[in-house]
């Protein structure tokens, strides 16, 4: 009853094509953004920001990128970790080569580099499909990490073999480096994610997104009606890698501070894929929901014994956490195989009628 569209009419094409056509939606989203920008930095303590929210935002960006590739264009990719590494290492090289360049621009340039790399590794997709492609992208994952390990130029010949985020300011506020405070880094990550989510939403609603979905659903039929598979698939790889590259750069610069290649290994690729599948393939909101699930559930499970006042040995706790996490995933899939986004959609449908039954 509250969520009805009755009484809201559109008087221009532009307002009809809005991303959030229903006024209630706009209010909720506006409130959520306001809360995220204003309330959270004021209320949340450093643990919340540093260990929960910042990784959530960064993983959402990576999940968004992978969702564009796997959910909308149908190309399963397990190379996300490798692409994030490319973003991180190129951001490192760019900031060390051009110290006066704004770190935000460095992130975008790193994304561009990753897009080029993604283009190259996306070429097999023209010949290989489905799970075979997924395993082929693993070649990208392993090769890229080997490259960063082997060639010392990428770490500026550091004896430690790791890359470190240099201290950089934006408008004289410290954004990266050890002195950057958690709220500033959180707001930077939030800004990036918000802008990229808007870009992604508009991409998928437009011609590009529709061509991706055509390729995903019936690629031969799509080719027949004029969607060029080469361009479409490569564009998907490029844009997805751009997102993942920026996410990777943020991963080191805004979250970890310092990283070695092991931080981008195959587990990261699998983690982001899980986020996309659990959140919902082919849904922008799904990327966020999936990232929230994967980031927050383990933390919640770790803290439950404290809340309940139980003192369990850490090993037992971790093992039970793993079992519960696996069990939850299976349970979720049984209840809603199309992911959390679908669950949300169904709830919205119900909300339109509530409290009436029909």
């Amino acid at each position, binding site marked *: 009853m509250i969520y009805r569209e009755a009484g809201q009419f559109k008087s221009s094409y532009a307002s009809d094509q809005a991303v959030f056509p229903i006024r209630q939606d706009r209010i909720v989203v506006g409130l959520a953004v306001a809360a995220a920008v204003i309330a959270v930095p004021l209320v949340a303590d*450093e*643990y*919340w920001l*540093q*260990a*929960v929210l910042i*990784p959530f935002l960064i993983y959402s960006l990576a999940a968004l990128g992978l969702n564009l590739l796997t959910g909308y264009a149908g190309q399963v990719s397990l190379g996300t970790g490798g692409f994030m590494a490319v973003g991180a290492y190129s951001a490192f090289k760019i900031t060390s080569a051009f110290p006066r360049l704004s770190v935000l621009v460095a992130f975008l340039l790193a994304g561009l580099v990753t897009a080029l790399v993604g283009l190259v590794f996306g070429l097999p997709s023209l010949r290989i499909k489905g799970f075979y492609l997924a395993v082929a992208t693993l070649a990208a994952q392993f090769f890229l990490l*080997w490259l960063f*390990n082997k060639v010392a130029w990428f770490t500026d010949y*550091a*004896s*430690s*073999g*790791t890359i*470190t985020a*240099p*201290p950089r300011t934006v408008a004289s506020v410290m954004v990266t*480096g*050890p*002195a950057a405070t958690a709220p500033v880094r959180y707001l930077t990550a939030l800004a990036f994610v918000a802008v990229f989510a808007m870009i992604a939403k508009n991409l998928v609603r437009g011609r590009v997104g529709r061509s991706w979905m055509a390729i995903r659903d019936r690629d031969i039929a799509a080719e027949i009606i004029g969607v060029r598979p080469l361009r479409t698939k490569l564009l998907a790889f490029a844009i997805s890698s751009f997102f993942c590259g920026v996410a990777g750069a943020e991963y080191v610069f805004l*979250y*970890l*501070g*310092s*990283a*070695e*290649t*092991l*931080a981008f*290994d195959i*587990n990261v690729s699998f983690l982001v894929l899980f986020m996309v599948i659990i959140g919902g393939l082919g849904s922008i909101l799904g990327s966020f929901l999936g990232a*929230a699930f994967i980031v*927050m*559930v383990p*933390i*919640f499970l*770790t*803290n439950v014994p*404290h*809340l309940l*006042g139980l003192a369990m*040995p*850490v*090993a037992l*706790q*971790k*093992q039970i956490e*793993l079992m519960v996490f696996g069990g*939850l995933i299976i*349970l*979720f899939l*049984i*209840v*809603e195989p199309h992911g*959390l986004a679908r*669950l949300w959609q169904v*709830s919205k449908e119900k909300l339109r009628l509530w409290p009436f039954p029909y």
Partner: protein
Amino acid sequence: MTLRRVMIALLAMLVIAGPAAGTVFAQAKEMFIPSLVYRTGPYAPSGTPFANGMWDYLTMLNERDGGVNGVKLIVEECETQYDTKQGVECYERLKGKSGGAMAFNPLSTGITYQLIPKASVDKIVVHSMGYGMTAASDGRWFPWVFTFPTTYWSQASSVIRYIGQQEGGLEKLKGKKIVHIYHNSPYGKEANPTLEELARLHGFELTLLAVDHPGQEQKATWLQVRRINPQWVYMSGWGVMNQVAVKEAAAINFPMDHFIGNWWSASEADVIPAGDGAKGYKGATFHAPGTNFKVHADIVKFVYDRGKNIGPKDKIGEALYNRGVVNAMYMTEAFRTAMAKYGNKPLTTEQVRWGYEHFNLTEARLDQVGLKGFTHPVKVTCEDHEGSGPVLIQQWDGKKWNVVSDWIQPMREVVRPKLEVAAVEEGKKLGYTMRDCSKEN
């Protein structure tokens, strides 16, 4: 559908309850020590004995002496699974808990790299004992990071010195072949520059063979070893790489007493799968194995007999268990050093740092602690957070580790200059400035 409703309710709970950790405030006369451990996951065979050693020593102090100089220690373990992300989460959750963490022992090179920049901002000591970033041993650039008693670079030079001793003198190394098998990660590569320099200085032929993570399939590496036919093999491995390497070496009939693993590659877990084939395998260490020390007797009496232990009794005295004990001992002795100056009360982290920086463990003190002959005396200074300590070589006889050498000094004249150069590099990257040690007390 009720299942669906249950799901939605669960989701709502997760979102609301979330990471609301319970807050426990330390009473007066208590200090909080977080213990980052990995008792599960791929590195659990190495992490579990270490965690047990640390827990047992600290609990023993609480039970026997009521803590350190009367100040009780609250120890809380946090499981990281050797994963950097979980390490960050543990750090953020525990750094301010119960009045503030006194010091962090990250137990993982990856997590150490995370914490080094944060250490000076949050002002908490990070003690990466024999691992982590070797360059951080220069205290002028990294006042909050400590790496004593020794580092990978010093260890590599000590091992070469030992090999020289076995061959009849460092001059005899000329023309000999030494292979370094290393884990393909920054940790594994740490020793390489030092080894290359020593190869130049002493004329031996060095071959570097990388083993990709996780190192479960090493056939190609050991085929190459067979082809090169070196006199000595040195290994910087980790996790399953160690077990497989020892097995492969035994399988190709390589003389095990010419195979030396570094101190993370020479523990019980690494030699068990190979069975008898591992007899003679050597490893480096900076403390003795075994239970012939008063501390161990006290641990049995005050911890195991009172049921306050986590691990099993028959695993006391294992190589990595003793490493946990020595880590805990260093930490509590640093507290004592600080308390000698600031008084027997709960310390602040600044005072703890002072204690670490003026750490001076003598033979006499070791005897008092109950660890006579267990480890070498260590002296830390403002410039030298490494202590540049010597190592021992231990050998596996099929049932236990036995020390087979004296304390072998590292080649400080080779290691220290490179360390100082690296420290400048790493320190500038983080925007630090060098301290002037002469201006401080």
